């Protein structure tokens, strides 16, 4: 899969997230539940599925997580806004870049449905907070899978 997403954008999102990571993860008290657990079994995902999973998860964050999260700290609000707007920009880049190459296999569809199911298990604000705290998992997954040569 040609590298659609610019690593610079991913790094800038990582920097914004890293500044608020502790604040978000500390408030997440449900250690025994993860939202993005299914990403772990997608490590040997086919390139064409990388695009489908990425698009679904960007949409998941856009339509649910960022909307459902209620934040009181202005500083955290600014960082989340940076991430949300960079996700919007990323989504457009992905759509322009892949056109038709973005099919969804059953495996990819299942993985993204598990994410939605995990989200629905929790009360909305807890689910949104946990999903924000797991952005490092999503960004690491993007970093690995959107590089032309992925590690063994």
């Amino acid at each position, binding site marked *: 899969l040609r590298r659609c997403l610019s690593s610079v954008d991913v790094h800038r999102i*990582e*920097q914004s997230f890293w500044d608020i990571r502790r604040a978000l*993860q500390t408030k997440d008290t449900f250690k025994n539940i993860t939202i993005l657990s299914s990403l*772990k079994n997608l490590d040997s995902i086919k390139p064409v599925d990388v695009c489908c999973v990425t698009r679904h998860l960007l949409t998941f964050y856009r339509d649910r997580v960022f909307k459902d999260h209620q934040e009181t700290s202005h500083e955290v609000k600014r960082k989340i806004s940076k991430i949300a707007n960079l996700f919007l920009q990323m989504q457009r880049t992905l759509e322009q870049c892949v056109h038709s190459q973005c099919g969804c296999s059953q495996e990819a569809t299942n993985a993204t449905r598990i994410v939605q199911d995990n989200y629905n298990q929790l009360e909305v604000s807890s689910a949104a907070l946990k999903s924000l705290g797991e952005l490092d*998992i999503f*960004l690491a997954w993007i970093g690995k899978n959107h590089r032309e040569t992925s*590690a063994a």
Partner: protein
Amino acid sequence: MKNVLHWNPPKGQHGAEVTYTVQYFIYGQKEWLSVSGCRSISRTYCDLSAETSDYEHQYYAKVQATWETKCSEWAETGRFYPFLETQVGPPEVVLKTGEKSISIVLTAPEKWKINPKDDPVSMQQIYSNLKYNVSVYNTKSRMWSQYITNSTLEFTWLEPSIQYCIHVESFVPGPPRLPLPSQKRCFSTLKDRMSALK
């Protein structure tokens, strides 16, 4: 990926014999797990490398102090993600000098091994975007130059008969990690044949 938990002794227990017990939690699993080598220990660190060897999982750890008949609250870490947080050691540095040039051959460090007999795994295999920051110091002009590379660097612009010093840091683009720079290495370029003839 050698992951060692460190902590400070509790305040106000001077003289008392304090021992510690460590437990860890794999994020998304069900319960806290004990660490066989870190039950009622008196040192203030615990090597959790084996327990956290799956670097794609996230973990928590907690420590409880016990002295006399009392025990403390559990002190807990934040969520630890080895893949994003481990420090990457310096590369192996091999220098090949020419008359006015030098080649710096860099080889990625190896991942920590649970069993020393295991096959080595290069950090390059884990981080395909692993890079090196090479700093070159000209002892005559006292100028530093910096270069980013992912394997070998060749300098053809060196002046003859000058001592240069370099040090190299590994880095993975992404979240900030504490760098572990290599030792400083110095070398001198050979005398210029032309000047030798004058």
